[in-house]
C-alpha cells in the first residue's frame, strides 16, 4: 500500500542549504582504524556548484555518504561533527525522518548507473515508484510524471521508452534515468558522485550539460564529487580539494586554477599533460598517499611535499584557515606556495 507522506517542512537558514562542520568518520577495520574523514567543514547555498576533488582514498565519497546517512556501519562510524540541512542536524535525525529527507530534500547519483537501477523493472516504473512512495500518487499519475521526467532529462521518445528495461539503454541514457530519479522529488541538494567517470567523453559532455541545465531550472545546490580536473574547471563555482580526509584547499574555481595555495593542489594541476611539455616528463607528485590507518604526524601531505619543513612534520595538522578573502587552505607555507617560483 502506498504510504502517503508529506514533505518535511524545512527552509534554508541564512541562505545556506547545507552546513557541514568538523565532520569525522572512521572505518574500524581489521588492520586498524582508518581515519577516512578528519574534520571537514563547508556549506552549500542554493544554485551553488561545489566540486569536491580528490583521489581514491581521499574521503570524497565517504563525505557524500555521511551527508546522505548511507554509510555502511560497521565498519564506518561518524565520530564527530554536524551535517546541518536547513538548520537540522541530519546525523542525529531519526532514521524515519532521514528517509524523508533522502530523495525529497537531498538526492544522490552514482557513477555506475547500471548497477544502481533494478534490472527486473522497466525504467518508467522505477521512476514512477518515487512518486508512488513519496507522494502517494496512483499508478497512472505516477507513470505520467515519470514520462514527463524522462522528457525533462532529454530522453528521446520518452513515452515509448518508459517500458524498456535498464539493459536496453546505453550508458549515457542510463545515467539520465538515474538523474531523473534523483531529481524526481525536486530535491534542494543533489550530490553527484563521479557521475561521468564511467562514460565516454562525448557522453560526459552531454551529462554535465544536462546537470547544469537542470540546476539552472530548479536552483538546487549541486555537490560534484570527482577526480577529474577538466570536469571541475568546466562546471564548478567552488572547489574543495581533499587529501587524506581533510579539505586542504577551498576557493572559487578561477583563483584555484590560476594559482593554487596548497602544495597538493599545485601538484595536481601541474600533473595535467600540457602542450609545451610534449614528450618530456610530466610533473608527478612523488610518492603515494599514506595509509589512512597510519597517517603521518603533522600535515598528512608532508612526506610528498617539496615545501615541507620541520614544522610540517612536528606540529599538528595545519589549521584550515582563510588565507585570502574567501579562500581557505590548510598549509603552514601558504605564502610561499602562492608566491612560488614558476619555471
Amino acid at each position, binding site marked *: 500500500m502506498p504510504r502517503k507522506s508529506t514533505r518535511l517542512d524545512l527552509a534554508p537558514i541564512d541562505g545556506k542549504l547545507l552546513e557541514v562542520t568538523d565532520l569525522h568518520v572512521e572505518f574500524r577495520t581489521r588492520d586498524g582504524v582508518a581515519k577516512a574523514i578528519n574534520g571537514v567543514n563547508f556549506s552549500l547555498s542554493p544554485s551553488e556548484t561545489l566540486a569536491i576533488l580528490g*583521489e581514491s582514498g581521499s574521503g570524497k565519497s565517504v563525505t557524500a555518504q555521511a551527508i546522505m546517512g548511507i554509510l555502511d556501519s560497521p565498519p564506518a562510524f561518524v565520530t564527530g561533527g554536524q551535517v546541518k540541512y536547513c538548520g537540522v542536524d541530519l546525523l542525529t535525525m531519526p532514521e524515519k525522518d532521514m528517509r524523508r529527507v533522502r530523495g525529497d530534500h537531498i538526492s544522490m547519483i552514482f557513477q555506475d548507473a547500471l548497477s544502481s537501477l533494478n534490472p527486473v523493472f522497466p525504467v518508467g516504473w522505477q521512476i514512477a515508484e518515487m512518486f508512488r512512495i513519496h507522494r502517494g500518487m496512483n499508478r497512472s499519475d505516477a507513470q505520467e510524471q515519470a514520462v514527463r521526467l524522462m522528457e525533462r532529462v532529454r530522453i528521446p521518445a520518452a513515452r515509448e521508452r518508459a517500458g524498456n528495461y535498464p539493459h536496453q539503454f546505453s550508458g549515457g541514457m542510463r545515467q539520465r534515468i538515474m538523474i531523473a530519479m534523483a531529481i524526481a522529488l525536486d530535491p534542494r541538494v543533489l550530490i553527484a558522485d563521479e557521475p561521468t567517470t564511467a562514460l565516454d567523453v562525448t557522453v560526459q559532455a552531454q551529462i554535465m550539460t544536462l546537470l547544469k541545465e537542470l540546476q539552472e531550472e530548479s536552483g538546487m545546490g549541486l555537490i560534484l564529487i570527482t577526480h577529474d580536473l577538466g570536469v571541475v574547471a568546466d562546471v564548478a563555482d567552488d572547489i574543495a580539494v581533499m587529501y587524506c580526509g581533510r579539505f586542504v584547499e577551498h576557493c572559487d574555481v*578561477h583563483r584555484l586554477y590560476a*594559482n593554487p595555495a596548497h602544495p597538493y593542489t599545485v601538484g595536481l594541476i601541474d600533473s595535467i599533460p*600540457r*602542450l*609545451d611539455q610534449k614528450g618530456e616528463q*610530466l610533473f608527478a607528485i612523488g610518492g603515494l598517499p599514506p595509509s589512512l590507518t597510519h597517517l603521518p604526524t603533522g600535515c598528512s601531505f608532508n612526506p610528498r611535499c617539496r615545501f615541507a619543513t620541520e614544522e610540517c612534520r612536528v606540529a599538528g595538522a595545519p589549521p584550515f584557515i582563510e588565507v585570502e578573502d574567501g579562500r581557505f587552505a590548510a598549509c603552514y607555507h601558504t605564502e610561499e606556495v602562492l608566491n612560488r617560483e614558476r619555471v
Partner: protein
Amino acid sequence: MSESELSGLSGQPETVSGTGEDAGAADGAAASGPTRAARHVGVEPILSVRDLTKYYPLSSGVIRHTVGHVKAVDGISFDLFPGETLGIVGESGCGKSTLGRLLVSLERPTSGSIVFEGRDITDLKGSAMRRLRRDIQIVFQDPYTSLDPRKTVGDIIGEPFKIHPAVVPSGKRQARVKELLDLVGLNPEHINRYPHEFSGGQRQRIGIARGIALNPKVLVCDEPVSALDVSVQAQVVNLLVRLQKELDLAYVFIAHDLSVVRHISDRVGVMYLGKFMEMGDEDQIYDRSTHPYTQALMSAVPVPDPQARDKRELIVLQGDVPSPANPPSGCRFHTRCWRAQPACAEQDPELVPREDGAGGHDSACLFAELFSKASEEITEADQIG
C-alpha cells in the same frame, strides 16, 4: 580547442619532482629530441597491419546458429616504426581493445595480416608463436585483475622466464627480476610481496615489468593509466616514456584520454566502430583534424582551465554509437554527423590523405575540412543533449 587555449593553463611547468617515492623523480629524466616521426623516412616498419578484421559471430536459438557478426575491428591498416608511439583513441566499443588483443595474438583475426619484421605472424602456431611472444608484449588496463593475487611479485615478473627458459639462465633469474623491479621504480626487496599489498600505480609498474621482461620490441599498452589517480597517472606515463627511450620500444598506446595520448604519441589514430576515421601525427590530429568525429571528440574533452569555460565550442553529437553488429551503411559516422550529406550514406570513404590546410593527412571523410565555428550551422535541432 586551440593551442592557445591549452597553453593558457595557469600553473607553469615544475621541473622539481616530488620527494618521496624512489621512482617519481627518475622517470623520464631525458628530454625528447625533434619529432620522432621524422626519423622514419626510409626506415622499415617493425609492424605492418593490413586490412585487419575481427568479427565475432552472434548466435541465437536452440541450435546456436549464427545470425550475424559483431564487427569489432573492420579493416584496420597501419605501420608501426621502431621506437615510435602510435596512439589509438576512441570511445568504448570502438574496437580499440580488440585491436590490441589482435596485435599480441590473444585473438585470431578473421581476415587481414599482421607483419612483424617482414614476416606474416597471423597464422603462426606452436613454438614459432611462442618465440614471437617474446617480441610483442602487452600491458593491461586494470592493475587489480592483471596480476595473479596468489603469486608473489617475484613469481609474476619471473613467469616469463619460466615460459621462455632460454632468455635468462635459471640461476640469474632472481637477479634479473630484481633488476626489472628497480627499472620500473619499485624496491627490489619487495620481491616476495603479494600484489594486494601494493597500490594501483605500483601494481601497474609490476605489470609493466612483466611486459618488458622478455625484452620485447613492441609493447601494446591497453589503457595503462586510465584506472589510476591523476597524480599516479603522471608517474606511470613518465615511466613508460623513460622505458621507451632506454629500451628502444615501440608502443601501441590505446587510450580514451586524449590528453595523455597526445603527450605520449608520435602519431594518433582515431577509431570509430572498428575503423580508423583519421590518422596523423599529433599536430595533424589535434590542431588540424579534418574529420567531424575527431572534431567532436576533441571538443568534448573538458579543458582544465576555468577561463576556457565560455570559449569552448562544444559539438554535441546526436544519439548513441550504433551497434557494431549492424553498422550504418556508407560512412559509419554519418548517422551522428552534422555535416552528413546524402552521399555519406552510400559511399564508405577511404582513409587517404586529404587537405588539412598545411599539406594533408589521412582522413576518412568525403567532406574533410577543418572545423571552424563560423562555417558550421549547428542548429538547435542537432543538439540533443
